[in-house]
């Protein structure tokens, strides 16, 4: 398995998209996305095969090319279970994103080019083992977001695009500082695996850790640096929101774990309690704030803040089970929230509103879309059989292993959110889909078209697949999580 194909394929797609014209563009983007999904699945199969064959190397399929000898910058790629899962997530979300954008009229070519570029950045980020290149790919994924919102957005799009780009750039600046700190304390290397082998003094770790964790934390909407999320999502086009919540926020979570926690275990221990407090606040506070939202996109944006809190809580708990739960939550939330935004987009295209109060009785006129809304809502509130449940329960069980009042209280606070989540999800879902049909004009609406159905069914299948048989994904993630937590435990 050549990992570079994961970068080359989207690159090729992006270039072809630019060369095509008119109606071909979306088909090229679609074909590219399908191939990416196939590649991601192939990667997972090859990876599992290697593991089953007894390959216990930490990173598989590694390749290394030195680019700048002087400063040790090189293209170093390799994957563990976490990367494989994230690559799969990226490919699923980007295929669905391409599909729901089928009817984009304005500057189609540029739109698909930017979407593909975003996916490219994400793939590169998830397989990079060199901090510099990793950072490079992270930045690649920021600029398209700015343009996607600024050009194809709705509402206060310039404000939202600026806010998002500036806040993420701020996060990037922190990451850069942290990265340079690592570079100079760990033998002038950007290579993750070799930094991991360097003894970094504890007090240096305490110094660098906040830069990296907070920097990546901005990307993953860590409280209180989450405010780009509601505005960004509410202005972004449907596929933009899907990518933003489904993929970009995961870049942050992955970075927190792979770079900050993995490379600086002492730092992680030092700040774990702060992370736990912030994420417990985010979970509950985000849920309560969601309850008051009237716009579906704002609602899902705030609920993302709450759900992402579970990831950070799991990371902060520093146990193998909790970190596995955090990773499961990243995958689950990525799929779920992408689907949620897709459905919101479908509803908006038809009803021309995102206000919960202005919809009603849509189950009667849009049975397919409404059913998907129900499924994704149930996933969000953690119904067993869907992916959210698996992730949340793993986080809870993992969090419960640390037996002091502080950890227990944080876990109970986080668990309490399952009630608040049920309240806001049921309010939103019931108000939009149930009850009498609110508007005469809704009676003429057409249910989902084939591309929308395909996108929805793809993500539903993934959510149900993980929810029904979570074993394979958990088994994929657990060994990689264990390597990270073992470092923290000093093993």
């Amino acid at each position, binding site marked *: 398995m050549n990992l570079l194909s994961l970068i080359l394929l989207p690159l090729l797609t992006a270039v072809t998209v630019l060369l095509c014209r008119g109606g071909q563009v979306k088909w090229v983007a679609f074909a590219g996305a399908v191939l990416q999904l196939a590649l991601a699945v192939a990667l997972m199969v090859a990876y599992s095969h290697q593991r089953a064959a007894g390959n216990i190397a930490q990173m598989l399929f590694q390749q290394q090319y030195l680019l700048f000898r002087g400063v040790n910058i090189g293209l170093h790629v390799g994957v563990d279970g976490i990367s494989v899962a994230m690559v799969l997530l990226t490919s699923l979300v980007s295929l669905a994103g391409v599909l729901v954008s089928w009817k984009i009229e304005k500057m189609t070519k540029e739109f698909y080019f930017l979407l593909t570029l975003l996916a490219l950045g994400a793939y590169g980020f998830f397989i990079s083992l060199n901090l510099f290149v990793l950072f490079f790919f992270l930045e690649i994924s920021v600029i398209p977001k700015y343009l996607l919102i600024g050009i194809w957005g709705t509402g206060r799009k310039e404000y939202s695009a600026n*806010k998002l780009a*500036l*806040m993420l750039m701020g996060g990037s600046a922190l990451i850069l500082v942290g990265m340079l700190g690592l570079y100079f304390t760990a033998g002038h290397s950007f290579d993750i695996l070799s930094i991991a082998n360097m003894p970094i003094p504890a007090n240096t770790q305490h110094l660098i850790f906040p830069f990296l964790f907070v920097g990546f934390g901005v990307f993953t909407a860590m409280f*209180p640096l*989450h*405010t*780009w999320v*509601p505005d960004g999502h509410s202005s972004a086009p449907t596929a933009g929101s899907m990518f933003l919540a489904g993929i970009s926020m995961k870049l942050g979570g992955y970075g927190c774990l792979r770079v900050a926690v993995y490379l600086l275990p002492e730092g992680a221990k030092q700040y774990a309690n702060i992370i736990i407090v912030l994420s417990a606040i985010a979970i509950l*506070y985000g849920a*309560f*704030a969601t*309850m*008051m*939202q009237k716009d579906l996109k704002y609602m899902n944006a*705030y609920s993302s803040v709450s759900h992402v809190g579970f990831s950070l809580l799991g990371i902060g708990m520093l146990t*193998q*089970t909790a970190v596995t739960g955090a990773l499961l939550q990243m995958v689950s939330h990525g799929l779920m929230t992408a689907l949620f935004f897709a459905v919101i987009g479908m509803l908006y295209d038809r009803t021309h509103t995102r206000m919960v109060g202005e919809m009603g*009785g849509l*189950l*009667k006129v849009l049975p397919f879309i409404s059913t998907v809304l129900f499924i994704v809502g*149930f996933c969000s*509130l*953690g*119904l*067993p*059989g869907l992916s959210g*449940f*698996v992730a949340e*329960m*793993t986080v*809870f*069980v*993992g969090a*419960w*292993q640390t*037996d002091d*009042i502080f950890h227990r209280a944080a*876990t*109970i606070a986080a*668990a*309490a959110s*399952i*009630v608040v989540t*049920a*309240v806001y999800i*049921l*309010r939103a879902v*019931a108000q939009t*889909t*149930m*009850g*009498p*049909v609110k508007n005469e004009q809704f009676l003429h609406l057409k249910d989902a078209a084939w591309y929308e159905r395909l996108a929805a069914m793809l993500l539903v299948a993934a959510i149900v697949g993980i929810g029904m*048989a*979570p*074993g394979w994904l*958990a*088994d994929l993630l*657990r060994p990689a999580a264990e390597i990270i937590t073992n470092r923290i435990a000093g093993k």
Partner: protein
Amino acid sequence: MPNVTIIALIVLLPLAAFLLLGLFGKSLFNKGGGIVATMMMLVSAVLALYTAYQYFFVYGSTGGVYHQCIPWQITWLQFYNGLSINIGFLVDPISVIMLVVVTFISLMVHIYSLGYMKGEGRLPVYFAFLGLFTFSMLGLVLASNIFQTYIFWELVGVSSFLLIGFYYNRPSAVAACKKAFIVTRFADLGFLIGILIFSFCANTLDFSTLIQRLTATGSNEVKTAATYSFMGISALSWGAVLVFIGGAGKSAMFPLHIWLPDAMEGPTPVSALIHAATMVVAGVYLVARLFPVFAIATPGVLQIVGWVGAVSAIIAAVIACTQTDIKRVLAYSTMSQIGFMMFALGVSNYGGEQGLGYTAAMFHLFTHAMFKALLFLGAGSVIHYVHNNDMAAMGGLRKQLPITHITFLIACLAIAGIPPFAGFFSKEEILLAAYQHNTAIYYIALVTSGLTAFYMFRLYFSIFWGKPYENHSAHRHGEGGFVMVLPLVLLAVGAAAAGFIPFGHFVTSDGSRLESSVHVQFSLLPVGLALAGIFIATWMYKTDSDRPARVAASIGGLYKAAYHKFYIDEVYVFITKKILFNGIGKLAAWFDRSIVDGLVNLTGTCTVAISRGIKKMQSGKVQGYALYFLAGVIVLATLFIYVWK
């Protein structure tokens, strides 16, 4: 050993019906969907009966003691070495009894629905949801792992949500389904934390290992668990209380009962299945499943279980006496009867004669399923005929609905505890257990028995006697044909005869045989009270008179309070609307937009302001630069001369 394939079929057939009708219902079986689902349910029920026969009479017992066996189990999700969610089948007396109850009542409801729901637009969806519910409930009763219970616990919750909200264009149904889900979700939070505590203490989630580890005196787990406590209460007790809160929510125990009466917005057959016979007893089943832990490790919590049951029983009975919607009367009656089961468990001990309450609770669960499902289906026939839920709109229906009348009467006699109907035997055992262990609860139960007889016959006379109801609608459809009558008759047979099953031979707290007999002297008082209740109801409601109004007026305040359900709903509305929504929710949303985001924007504004300020320095005017240069030279010169020397 039990046959895995057969048990798997019992569980999976309803799931298959759900998938079949849910995915292809519209295109393939718009008309015949109900029949397909009913057929699958029939097979499932027959297999369940077969399994029960095999278990109780062929392989289940050795030396007169029934054993637990787990014919199939897989690891579903591994948390860490030693702790995992396992999905499997746990076969023991109570799960086998529940298999029979669930599949039988579900079959009856399927058949009945063929007639009752005829002409409904979304028939395949309805039967699909029934299938989903039945599957989830079966998964719950067969659970071999406490997390498996939780999984299916949530799934029955969501099926209940979907079915209550089946008439989704009625705002009251939408409100009711949300309420049911959210109230039980709140209770489930307790259950979840309870599971976490248990899993931490016992380091396993499997029921059998968990019970074994937590009840063996001196085991490592018990010793470790004893070192943890919070607010002076041991960790195990916290776990048991929290798990019980989950059970209390599902079983509509006071004060988490508020969702049950509203849940009557669902189609009546659904009420019979979910909100009378099966799902609402899940809490009782859960306590029974963990009974050794409650009885041996945390006897204090078992006391709480008993008192919550007793209080729920009497409060619900009092409220039931004042309600006029016939389904709501039945809903409160269900809550009251579940209260009986709950306090029967609460007054029981583990093992031998002392475990009478346990047997009685499961016995009552069994008989109650028969007569309460019958009552609901009977009420369904009445509503089908009258097109109204209010007992004021009914009267004299015994002529128009003769079979419904007779079967309803049998069910009323059964629930009132009149011999030889089923309810008499099970209630007798409960009262005996209470009498032996907790006199206060015994007296509460006695009063409740009298009230039960009164409100049931109030219902009976209001529907079938008094001023005849006049049917103005053009078409008279009578009792809805064979499919609606058959379940009534079959259930009536159950309600009349189920009491003669020697339940103590099959289901006991420790699996060994328990002989129970009817004590005539002991029975005199409760039966007398029940007869008195019936007599008063006859006096007040058999013929139309102003007696009910006069009686209501004479107890004024109490009547009013009971009529308004003791204002418990209002308290909840206050807490949710005023405190959670307008208090915390609005505050959080405001705080986020104004303070947190305000700070972010402030950073932006400050940056812009600073750059505005300093951009004037880059004015492009040479004089200005010369001035800065001069100022710089002076400052540096001063520094060199005076500071740095």
